[in-house]
């Protein structure tokens, strides 16, 4: 729907700006994002995101259920990276209730989260490339993503909404042969990333569409509270796995890739390198994983302390996923707020797309890597 701006003599060439509705049912908005655009020809002058089409009141539901029954709700927020949402929630509840996880459970969690990071980045790469016009990487990415989902299925029976963690530890031990399959996947994954990079990294069209597009200076990124690969693509060395290590990340070796030019292409490079590092972490986990318990000792009646509040966050595939939980002395959280990385990242979109071309909007939405389930909660 378009409407010419009111002018005194509306001729074809006097029309300066027009309003354009982008989404919510547009495939390149990655869900139900709606943007109200003011365009001047091909240039975007103003962008106003309208969200909430997927709002399910998750935070209200959190206040209804005991701590342990809330884990499935977290699956449905970032539905393509459920394991990391599970971990963020379980970590916050553990901090509130004072549980400490056994080392074997920590390793299982880290493996699940790194697999999840790879699968999330693969889905991002596949859809981002399709948005820009490269169809082929999609098939390569989904080939490997399928194997990861199979690994998840073997562990917990689900492929997307995993519900694979509990406050205090892990619900199940690893199935027989799972570690071997995981090691096999991690060993060959580097070659797979080479394949994706072969298709894109030095591709002239890919570079033309991404280099210098959506530049996000580091100070702006920090001001907006942007986290994850978006922040590291702007050259800020901030990774919660390194800066505030949780679970067993302090025992593992990995690098934090950083971008230099703060553009879409650098963020692509950062995410691709992150996938390689995740595979490296997986290999180490398979070697180092100890035997032993997978669940901590839990009291029969689980109650939080009175007037207690905790904030705990982890590094998810999209950035910092945090939970702010207030305990009132009962078994139900009084308040459970989610710091959703996509929600925080998306608010910088108007600034990122200002005065860019309409075609680049699609590339920029792709590079922010948002999941509307998490934005709207």
């Amino acid at each position: 729907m378009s409407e010419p701006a009111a002018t005194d003599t509306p001729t074809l060439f006097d029309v300066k700006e027009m309003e354009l509705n982008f989404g919510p049912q547009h495939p390149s908005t990655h869900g139900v994002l709606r943007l109200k655009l003011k365009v001047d020809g091909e240039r975007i002058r103003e962008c106003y995101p309208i969200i909430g089409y997927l709002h399910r009141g998750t935070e209200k539901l959190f206040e209804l259920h005991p701590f342990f029954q809330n884990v499935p709700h977290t699956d449905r927020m970032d539905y393509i990276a459920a394991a990391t949402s599970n971990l963020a929630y379980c970590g916050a509840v553990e901090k509130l209730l004072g549980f400490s996880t056994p080392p074997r459970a920590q390793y299982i969690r880290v493996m699940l989260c790194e697999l999840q990071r790879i699968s999330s980045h693969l889905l991002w790469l596949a859809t981002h490339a399709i948005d820009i016009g490269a169809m082929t990487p999609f098939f390569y990415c989904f080939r490997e993503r399928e194997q990861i989902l199979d690994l998840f299925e073997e562990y917990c029976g689900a492929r997307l909404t995993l519900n694979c963690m509990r406050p205090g530890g892990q619900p199940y031990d690893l199935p027989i042969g799972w570690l071997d399959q995981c090691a096999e996947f991690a060993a060959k994954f580097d070659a797979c990333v080479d394949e994706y990079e072969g298709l894109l990294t030095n591709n002239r069209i890919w570079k033309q569409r991404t280099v210098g597009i959506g530049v996000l200076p580091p100070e702006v990124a920090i001001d907006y509270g942007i986290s994850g690969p978006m922040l590291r693509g702007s050259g800020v060395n901030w990774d919660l796995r390194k800066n505030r290590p949780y679970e067993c990340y302090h025992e593992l070796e990995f690098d934090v890739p950083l971008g230099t030019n703060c553009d879409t292409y650098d963020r692509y490079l950062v995410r691709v390198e992150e996938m390689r590092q995740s595979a490296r972490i997986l290999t180490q986990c398979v070697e180092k994983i100890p035997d032993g318990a997978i669940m901590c000792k839990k009291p029969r009646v689980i109650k939080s302390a009175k007037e207690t509040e905790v904030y705990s966050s982890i590094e998810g595939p999209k950035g910092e996923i945090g939970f702010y939980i207030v305990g009132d002395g009962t078994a139900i959280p009084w308040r459970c707020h989610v710091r959703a990385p996509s929600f925080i990242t998306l608010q910088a979109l108007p600034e990122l797309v200002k005065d860019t071309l309409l075609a680049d909007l699609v590339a920029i939405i792709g590079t922010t890597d948002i999941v509307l389930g998490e934005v709207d909660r």
Partner: protein
Amino acid sequence: MSENDRDPKSDAEEKAPEQEAEASDEVAAEAEDEAKKAEAERLAAEAAEKKRLAAEAKAAAEAAKPIWERDPSPPTWSDADDDELVIALRSAFPDAITSARSFEDLTLVVTREAVFDLAKSLKEEHGFTYMVDVAGADYPDREERFEAVYHVYNQSTDRRVRFKVSTDEDTPVPSLTPVWKGCNWPEREAYDMYGIRFEGHPDMSRILLWEGFNGFPLRKEFPVEGIDTGSAIYPEYYEEAQGPISGDGTGWKVPKKPPVPPAEETAAEEASTEGSDSDA
């Protein structure tokens, strides 16, 4: 442990004869009472000692266990009045911080009047440049029921600080969007969910719910099953939280203010706008 077991017994044995000797000086009847009393005391002391030992043994066994088999250790809050940052902030903004406590993160309760300047100083002088999150919270029993909770990082010292401002239903809170741009949407969300108004916010409108939604869903009194959206869309025709399908269970309920002529108009208008939408 075996040594510990022996000690209290011998102590008790030593005490007992002394007390008996004292008792022998008194009248015989009183002496009997005294003896009984002493015996009871001795037994009580023994029992207490045993209890203490058992507790000690349990604690030792607990400490020998790996951390995940121990009893949970819930957060322990400590006073943070002597924290350097709190002292610095208090000297710059006297009376601004009403309470400071800490468990992993420093938690400050800040007055509404001072929060903007304090936030500015946190960002510009103390290096808390990274905005993490803004959350609303509702405590209906308090005098000022709502709380806006801010989390900020200092990336160079890896420190996280949480500060809270309380307010009631009518009083606005100063918006911190001019300080950290990232507060924009989270503050809008707090407004959307709780009705906390932020003064000085560039765009104080609903964000997740639609404009015109009647009520604030994260307030504690808001029903979890939701309200009939009839009143949310047509507040002028339906009582609050009422609508065409709620009420006596018979299904349709006659609205309190029958929308006879205006309803047709709006319906017609709606149909026409919908039509034009779908055409485009």
